[in-house]
């Protein structure tokens, strides 16, 4: 084994890792607020709000991520006549896909907060929206922190899919270096370690927050 190959190519690999992190963070930042709105829609009494959110979530969840990225990379340009671009199609594809998963997590979080809390809020003259925002969502978020962090780790792992449209995220960068140096063993072990560290940090954080939840 020649670990020198990693040190030599570290700047290139780190650029890829940075791309992965940037993608994951951006996706989470866009998908999460969308998911909050959709989750509230998903449990609405009004059918014209509830059905569209339900249909959206179920379509997204029944397709593989890679197919949704392909929609935006190949299909949308055919329909609109202009290319979406590799970064944009990955971003849009990821955001809509993960928004659906986040929606389900948030929905079950909301449903973990008692119906009576909603009634208490409404009974004081707060609107439904205010009740959700100030009373239900903060409690729901606290209950679902572990599930959310797990999902964020999955988003990070999911960024590897960006490779299919040629975006240079971490795994794609690693692959390019192996092509050039013919040292797949070292490089893929290194990649595994990096993914492991990120996920392990995530689950540590989740466990920490979960502990805090029990106390308060």
């Amino acid at each position, binding site marked *: 084994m020649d670990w020198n190959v990693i040190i030599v190519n570290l700047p290139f690999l780190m650029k890829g890792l940075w791309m992965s992190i940037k993608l994951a963070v951006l996706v989470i930042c866009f998908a999460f607020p969308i998911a909050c709105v959709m989750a509230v829609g998903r449990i609405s009494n009004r059918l014209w709000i509830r059905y569209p959110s339900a249909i959206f979530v179920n379509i997204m969840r029944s397709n593989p991520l890679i197919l949704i990225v392909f929609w935006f990379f190949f299909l949308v340009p055919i329909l609109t006549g202009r290319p979406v671009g590799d970064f944009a199609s990955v971003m849009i594809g990821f955001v809509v896909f993960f928004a659906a998963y986040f929606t389900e997590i948030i929905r079950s979080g909301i449903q973990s907060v008692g119906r009576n*809390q909603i009634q208490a809020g409404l009974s004081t*003259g707060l609107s439904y929206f205010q009740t959700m925002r*100030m009373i239900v969502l*903060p409690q729901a978020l606290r209950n679902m922190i572990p599930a959310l962090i797990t999902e964020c780790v999955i988003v990070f792992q999911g960024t590897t899919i960006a490779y299919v449209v040629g975006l240079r995220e971490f795994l794609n960068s690693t692959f390019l270096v192996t092509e050039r140096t013919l040292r797949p063993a070292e490089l893929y072990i290194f990649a595994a370690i990096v993914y492991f560290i990120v996920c392990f940090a995530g689950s540590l954080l989740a466990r920490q927050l979960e502990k805090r939840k029990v106390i308060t």
Partner: protein
Amino acid sequence: MSNLLVDVRELNLWYGKYKALDNINTSFTAGKCVVICGPSGSGKSSLLRCVNRLEEFQEGDVLFEGQSLRECTNIASLRSEIGMVFQHFELYPHMSILDNITLAPRYAKKKSKPDAEAHAYVLMERVGITDQALKYPAELSGGQQQRAAIARALALEPKLMLFDEPTSALDPEMIVEVLRVMRDLAMEGMAMLVVTHEMGFAREVSDEIIFMDEGKIIERKNTEDFFSNPNSKRVQDFLDRILVKI
């Protein structure tokens, strides 16, 4: 009739196919305390929750100060005139007691933060929980939590207070402190609708008593008459059962 506060007219409520309220006709006047009692499942909570339209009734109407709830387009502002106290308190666990009390005044009634907090301290003093202002609900005893919930409802400066079994989740020694707060409120002339099995409280504090069964009002009487000569057999049985317990 000028101080008529709530007028319930031919009210019917279904949960799916199950009829929970069956043609309720009744009214409540300002300044009076009315106790609602009856066996479990008789529709007491349902009736209470129709008064601020937390339950959407299908037939009939409820008028609050002459305003039809059925036709009301700004139900939130109407609800902010009616305080409600729940069996399990329903304080917001992620907020301090002070924030619990000031939330609705600030965001539903658009009061400034200093005004809302000043008023909250007055109310906390009144229900005896001033020391708990900055604590979270989970740090309080059940009795303190229910008194905080009463303060939260009073912060709306309501014209009517609804109580749904406010003491049935409490240990006996805490029931007294909550009932005392409620009695003081009634003495000050607050209009109150109280669902409770505390017959001692009903006897001492309420002006009138309503007995419900199977979604209907079976009897409505002055408190004194209710205990001394109930005319229906069902009320008599109910009283026998519940008074023996005490």
